[in-house]
């Protein structure tokens, strides 16, 4: 307590928390409380057409043997892996290419913001049309270029739907990734490159030994955000495929939502908690194993 008194002025503490009050209040009431509420609900049999009763870990045990749940887990993890990796690669390539003054900067910037600014729901319907069996541009082009024998049933087949979802997601998020990587690249002093070139290194070597290490903090943060976003994906899938065909593209969030609508709030809450855990675990993984901690400090 003595140390505490020495370090802080009571007036300041009071002022600080007064300033922080609105934010903290909102955060507690509208984020913390609901999550705790979800946790509690998951321990109950909370079904709209049955009396509620405490059921302990029953909902979680049910998850263990639920085939469709595991299918959602597989789908979600696969989606996260493929999507984030693709965004990263394309984003990095674009950032490297653009890493200098770009002509017509303003226009390019607006163009780059378009995918990000459009609501996911709107872009999902856009892609729904583009991948449409009869009217879609993709099939039209593919047929014309002889890439396919017949129209591809994108949204009606498991792999097609997966591809459509990944492409839509990559479209939406790559520009953002590019900007972030660009800014990160811009922070690397050019002298280092000059030195490396004088030492007679190739571009590839420079990339792996100069660029990447210095880009690491930015990279890790960007990946962390993108991964967690991808784990909780809902909007795109709900609007584009509805989780189909046959439940093949149902992400974990969508799976939980379906149970809410079926009236089983307990089970839906349990699934929601799993999403939470997966996101949390991934975050911990990133912090621990990628040296984020040092970066933050």
């Amino acid at each position: 307590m003595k140390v505490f008194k020495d370090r802080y002025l009571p007036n300041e503490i009071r002022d600080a928390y007064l300033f922080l009050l609105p934010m903290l209040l909102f955060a507690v009431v509208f984020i913390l409380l609901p999550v705790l509420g979800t946790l509690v609900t998951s321990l109950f049999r909370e079904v709209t057409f049955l009396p509620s009763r405490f059921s302990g870990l029953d909902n979680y045990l049910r998850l263990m043997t639920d085939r469709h749940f595991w299918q959602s887990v597989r789908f979600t993890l696969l989606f996260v892996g493929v999507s984030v990796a693709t965004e990263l690669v394309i984003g990095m390539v674009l950032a490297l290419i653009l890493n200098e003054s770009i002509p017509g900067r303003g226009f390019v910037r607006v163009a780059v913001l378009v995918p990000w600014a459009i609501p996911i729901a709107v872009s999902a319907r856009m892609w729904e049309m583009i991948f449409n069996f009869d009217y879609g541009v993709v099939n039209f082009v593919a047929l014309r270029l002889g890439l396919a024998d017949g129209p591809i049933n994108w949204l009606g087949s498991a792999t097609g739907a997966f591809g459509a979802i990944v492409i839509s997601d990559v479209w939406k998020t790559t520009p953002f990734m590019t900007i972030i990587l660009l800014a990160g690249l811009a922070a690397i002093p050019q002298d280092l490159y000059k030195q490396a070139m004088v030492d007679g290194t190739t571009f590839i070597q420079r990339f792996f030994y100069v660029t990447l290490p210095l880009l690491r903090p930015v990279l890790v943060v960007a990946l962390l955000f993108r991964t967690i976003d991808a784990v909780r994906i809902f909007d795109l899938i709900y609007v584009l495929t509805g989780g189909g065909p046959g439940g093949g593209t149902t992400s974990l969030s969508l799976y939980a939502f379906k149970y809410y609508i079926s009236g089983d709030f307990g089970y839906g809450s349990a699934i929601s908690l799993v999403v939470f855990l997966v996101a949390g675990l991934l975050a911990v993984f990133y912090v621990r194993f990628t040296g984020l901690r040092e970066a933050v400090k």
Partner: protein
Amino acid sequence: MKSTILYILVMLAILLTGCADHEKKLTFWIGGAPQEVDYWETLVGEFERTFGITVDLIRQPSSTDQRKQGLVISLEAEQPDPDVFLMDIVWLQQFFQSGWLQPLDPFFEATGFSIAPFFKDVVDAVDRFEEHYYALPVFLDIGVLYYRKDLLKQYGFSGPPRTWRELVRQAHDVQAGERNHNPGFNGFLWQGAQYEGLVCTFLEFTASNGGGIIQDGHVRLNRSVNDVALEFMRALIRKYDISPLNTYTDMREEEVRRAFQRGDALFERNWLYAWNLHQKDGSAVEGKIGMTALPQFEEGQSVAALGGWHIGMSRYSDMPAKAWELVRFILSHASQKKLVLNLGWYPGRSDIYTDPEVLKKMPYAGLLQKTFSRAVTRPNLPYYDQVSDVIQRTVNGCLAGKQPPAAALGRMQSEIDHIEDIYAR
């Protein structure tokens, strides 16, 4: 300090305009195809003029799932709107048992409404819960067999098939002949894609062999009669070759209807709505078709899956008396007759079926009246959508060749037993 206060006041003002009291309106949620929605507007307009009550008619998206989602969210949130809404027959138990609907029978006597004209078997089977009626049918639907009269005649058959065996023979012969100049011709089209409709198809095939989904009030799928029926469904595609390969990937109501309407099939299993569309000007099969009950297996009987939409009132309505006026109006003989004549619907009131005007427009009305009473329903369970999901996936997988019928039935049974345990009272 002053500006902060100003900020907050402004925000509160805006917030409050948002949650300004919702003036009480009689809200009626509908959905469906454009011509349906248009006609509802006409009918409701008439109600408004006759009774002097304003109705806020809200269009939901046409997708059944999204209509249900919208209703579930509103009802679970105990919202005063919608007051009146339509429900798919398979949602009824979930809605009833969740306590979202107003019992209707208290209103019957007070307003001189009688339930007698309605098909008793249907209404008692699906619209009741614990001694009360919570909904009534706006229209009924059953699966029927459409057939090409002209082709049957051309190939020397005296009439539509009575048994599945006859159907296979007729389809086989006609298909072989027609494919000479129309390679895209198929003998028999039906809904086999992985969606709710597949449960109806499955129900019809199995029940027509004396089987079905429910037995003695429980789901009993693994019976040998079901095995035979499911094997037959598979054989239609793989052995007899009269149903196309994309039956289990693409075929839903519209895909089947469009193909038949183009003239590319001899037989079609579909709902009643297809008749009017087939007979429209410009249809390639206009005047060439007939409608009959679905075939059966030798030892079974002809059955039809029961579909259709029902109307109910929200328990949380802020104007139940007025809501009932609207419900009563829609279920009245006059309104139901208009719906029949304008939309080609088959009402839940049997007294419409003897009306000469109706019989003139819909020649099969007499036949159908008898069939409704014998229609089979999908399981009346509050957790039906999960049961449906199991059946859809497994049957579709079986059709695709992933599992033999006996194994598929066994698996469905155990999964549904598990679900039943979870939701036991």
